[in-house]
């Protein structure tokens, strides 16, 4: 397990230069609104490849002063792990503004998956509480991020799938009668879609096994994957599901040309979080119950990662105590104190962290 011992930010978000030594875990980050609590968690989340816990674009990350964005920015983390210490850095160099770079021990990382082998993060944000009242696309992104943390190749698979979708819609809209070209795109789409559906399905089974083992008082959460492709995979061999999807894509060309969408494949999937005790979906749950379900998923994901990647992930919890009742705050504090990885929590009200009983590190942000 890698433990963050020092974090340095340069020209990142609202930090010109910041440097923290981190001696204890868990770490409570407190300060008033706008002080940069979430940005600090975001910085840690960006040490692993991906868009971080805000899903931000590169252009949003540089510090702005006087209406001018800084040309470069950087985040460095110093880690202690059993048998080795290492640093991971990421950022933008002023001479290569469009490419985020990654360094391990100050040497360029040959592959981003090298970092995934060293570090993983699980996060919980207040935005997730709205996911179950919004369109399905947000929930798919939520699921896909969980899968990608466990399976580093998954992000690349999703990216090429997205490129194929865009190519096909563009080709349909151009109205070019080139059946071999469309067939080439649809063949690849079918294979990648089935691979994505299978990985999402596998993941949901793995996560649900971990969720069933969580101790009370966290709700017995269950992730329900509603995906026509995954359902077919449970009944037929992958090759025949692929063939079926190829046919559906081919038959849907006229429709997809009109609408600019793709009416078959992985984008039909949706998820729900069920509280198995009350047999209720997350959309029907109260704000407090929904928050508790999300905390369960986060703890379940941490246990999956610990088992399958042999390291406890860093937990980044933005406002975790808000909306939780007293018993669950207490239980979450106990869980985090016993956690064999490192947790970072934010909050405006120090009173929320009474359960930690002062057995935690503190970072106070003045803003």
């Amino acid at each position: 397990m890698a433990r963050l011992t020092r974090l340095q930010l340069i020209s990142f978000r609202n930090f010109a230069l910041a440097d923290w030594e981190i001696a204890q875990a868990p770490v409570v980050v407190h300060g008033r609104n706008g002080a940069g609590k979430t940005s600090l968690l975001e910085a840690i989340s960006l040490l692993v490849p991906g868009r971080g816990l805000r899903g931000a674009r590169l252009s949003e990350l540089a510090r702005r002063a006087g209406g001018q964005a800084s040309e470069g920015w950087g985040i460095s983390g110093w880690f202690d792990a059993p048998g080795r210490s290492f640093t991971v850095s990421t950022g933008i160099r002023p001479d290569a503004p469009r490419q985020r770079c990654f360094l391990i021990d100050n040497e360029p990382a040959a592959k981003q998956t090298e970092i995934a082998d060293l570090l993983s993060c699980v996060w919980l944000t207040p935005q997730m509480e709205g996911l179950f009242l919004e369109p399905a696309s947000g929930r798919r992104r939520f699921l896909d991020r969980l899968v990608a943390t466990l399976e580093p190749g998954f992000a690349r698979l999703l990216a090429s799938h997205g490129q194929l979708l865009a190519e096909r819609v563009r080709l349909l809209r151009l109205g070019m009668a080139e059946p071999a070209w469309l067939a080439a795109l649809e063949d690849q789409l079918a294979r990648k879609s089935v691979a994505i559906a299978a990985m999402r399905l596998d993941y949901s089974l793995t996560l649900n096994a971990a969720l069933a083992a969580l101790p009370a008082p966290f709700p017995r959460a269950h992730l329900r994957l509603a995906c026509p492709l995954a359902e077919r995979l449970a009944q037929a061999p992958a090759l025949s599901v692929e063939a079926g999807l190829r046919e559906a894509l081919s038959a849907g060309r006229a429709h997809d040309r009109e609408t600019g969408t793709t009416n078959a494949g992985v984008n039909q999937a949706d998820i729900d979080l069920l509280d198995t005790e009350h047999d209720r979906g997350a959309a029907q749950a109260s704000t407090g119950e929904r928050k508790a379900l999300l905390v369960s998923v986060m703890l379940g994901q941490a246990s999956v990662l610990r088992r399958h990647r042999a390291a406890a992930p860093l937990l980044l919890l933005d406002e975790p105590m808000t909306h939780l009742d007293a018993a669950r705050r207490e239980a979450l504090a106990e869980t985090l104190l016993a956690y064999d990885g490192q947790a970072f929590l934010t909050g405006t009200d120090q009173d929320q962290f009474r359960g930690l009983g002062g057995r935690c590190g503190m970072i106070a942000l003045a803003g």
Partner: protein
Amino acid sequence: MGGPEIEQLIGQFARLPGLGPRSARRAVLRLLQQPEARLAPLIRALEAAAKTTRVCGLCGNLDSVDPCSLCRDPRRETGLICVVETVADLWALERAGVHRGRYHVLGGVLSALAGTTPETLNLTPLLSRLSGGEVREIVLALPVTVDGATTAHFLSERLREFGVVITQLSQGVPMGGSLETLDEGTLAAALRTRRAV
């Protein structure tokens, strides 16, 4: 710094692959400081290359003769054609010395988003080479990207009627990991002049 002519020259150099504004400036300075030793021979070489270079009507290679010297070489297998995206790929394979047959340069890979269509590819000469009946095998050596895979799939479909064997270079990259090479390449380029943040 220099006059408009010098700045224009630097601008031309900076547009070449592998040269940034800084290295373009250095190259131009070197040329202008040694007009006899460097500049004059370069002008002569540019003129000669511009006058003689043509695109091979058979394979799309660049050479001073058409058909190119590879297409004329009697020791090369005529029944085996390796299809590549660019002349640079052809030259890279030649330097590696791994292919004993002929080549065909497509000049791109299919991409609806980038506007590269079958019509803009150098496809018709390939089809007429195949209709000669001498070719028995096509090796597709296209980039391991989404567009490269689409083009390979498209070609194997379009070339089926000629009854030739169609093979693909073994890349050692699994399907679904097709963007990997591209990402590593761009990342490596961005990190070449790295500095710790």
